[in-house]
């Protein structure tokens, strides 16, 4: 009697410890908790995530082929065995697709968190929404795992479709925020370099032909900066209106505009490099 009590107490305690240590952190692990805070860990973590993502994409493609084959097989045979195989193949493909999406969200989250020069309010809002979608896709994975027949699988297919429609604009907004911030940093850095070149000219005055060269270089750089400002104005015009959702076509336009900004900045950097040697 006494031994039984002791054993039951130990089992209960062990279960509680396992629940606290084992299940809770995994179940409640948002990308924010799983990913590092330290800037030095950014590159290795990103490499790790990209490798995982790449493997998951490959696995997904493999099971997708099996799913396509099972669909064709069922259409031909129309037997219960073929249906059973189709259900299993569909379930597996849906789970692999979910894995790919969860890793993709993790990569976006990591990139966004370590990108500077993003409005903190926008950044926090995007991070929070990415966390929500991360959880939603994980829940979806659990529901798919528990689905046994084709009706349940099709039900999950419906909820996934809704989820992905809502997620795509968020992923686009995140990418725009990241790319814009990178171009902004390059822009700010170029202005710091411009100031350093100007200071250098003031501290080391020259005369004659070299002074004319310097003046010409400065004028060229000023002109390039002016063109850059025009490009920024064009970019700002592309901003999302209230309640407008980011679409792929909008993203293509934004990407084109960011490319123009990048090219213009490359020209400015070339001018600055030349000017710093005069």
């Amino acid at each position, binding site marked *: 009697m006494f031994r039984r009590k002791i054993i039951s107490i130990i089992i209960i305690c062990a279960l509680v410890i396992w629940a606290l240590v084992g299940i809770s952190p995994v179940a409640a692990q948002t990308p924010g908790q799983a990913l590092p805070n330290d800037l030095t860990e950014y590159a290795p973590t990103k490499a790790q995530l990209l490798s995982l993502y790449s493997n998951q994409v490959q696995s997904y493609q493999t099971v997708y082929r099996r799913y396509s084959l099972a669909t064709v097989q069922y259409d031909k045979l129309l037997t219960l065995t073929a249906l059973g195989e189709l259900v299993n193949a*569909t379930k597996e493909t849906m789970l692999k697709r979910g894995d790919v*999406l969860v890793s993709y969200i993790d990569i976006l989250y990591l990139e966004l968190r370590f990108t500077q020069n993003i409005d903190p309010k926008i950044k926090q809002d995007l991070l929070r929404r990415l966390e929500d979608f991360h959880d939603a896709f994980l829940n979806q994975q659990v529901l798919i795992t528990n689905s046994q027949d084709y009706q349940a699988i099709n039900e999950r297919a419906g909820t996934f479709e809704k989820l992905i429609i809502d997620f795509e604009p968020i992923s686009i907004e995140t990418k725009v925020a990241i790319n814009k911030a990178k171009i902004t940093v390059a822009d700010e850095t170029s202005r710091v370099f411009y100031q350093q070149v100007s200071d250098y000219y003031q501290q080391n005055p020259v005369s004659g032909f070299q002074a004319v060269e310097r003046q010409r270089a400065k004028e060229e750089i000023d002109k390039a900066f002016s063109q850059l400002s025009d490009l920024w104005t064009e970019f700002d015009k592309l901003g999302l209106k209230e309640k407008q959702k980011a679409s792929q076509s909008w993203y293509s336009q934004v990407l084109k505009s960011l490319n123009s900004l990048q090219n213009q900045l490359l020209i400015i*950097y070339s001018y600055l490099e030349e000017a710093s040697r005069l």
Partner: protein
Amino acid sequence: MNLIQSRNQNQTVFNQEVPVLDNSLEESEQEIRRIEKSKITEPAKKRTWRFWLFVFMIGLVLLIGISVIIASFIPQSPPTTNPVVQPTPTEQYEDNSLSAQIKQKREELRRLELSQDSLAFPQIDKKIEIKID
């Protein structure tokens, strides 16, 4: 005479055995007392051991639980370093001239693959389902 002798012999035997019986009785009583004492003290010892095991397990569970809860509440703020014109250690020991710094930043900007879009949305089938006619 025989009867008297026999009686006397028996008396002698009786007189000899009595002290022996007395001793064994005393020892038995002592043994009984010892057993009774041990019966009283042993469960108490066992209870104490069980109690401390229980306290230890409960304590362990509480400690782990509290540390997990505290860990989940610790804010995880992103790094606040400003990347604008912060030369890396390699830059400091290599060519530190302004033109070299500009050249390096230009290379970094050139490597920025916006058009290739390394963060492209995964190529997945969004409509995986079972079609049954």
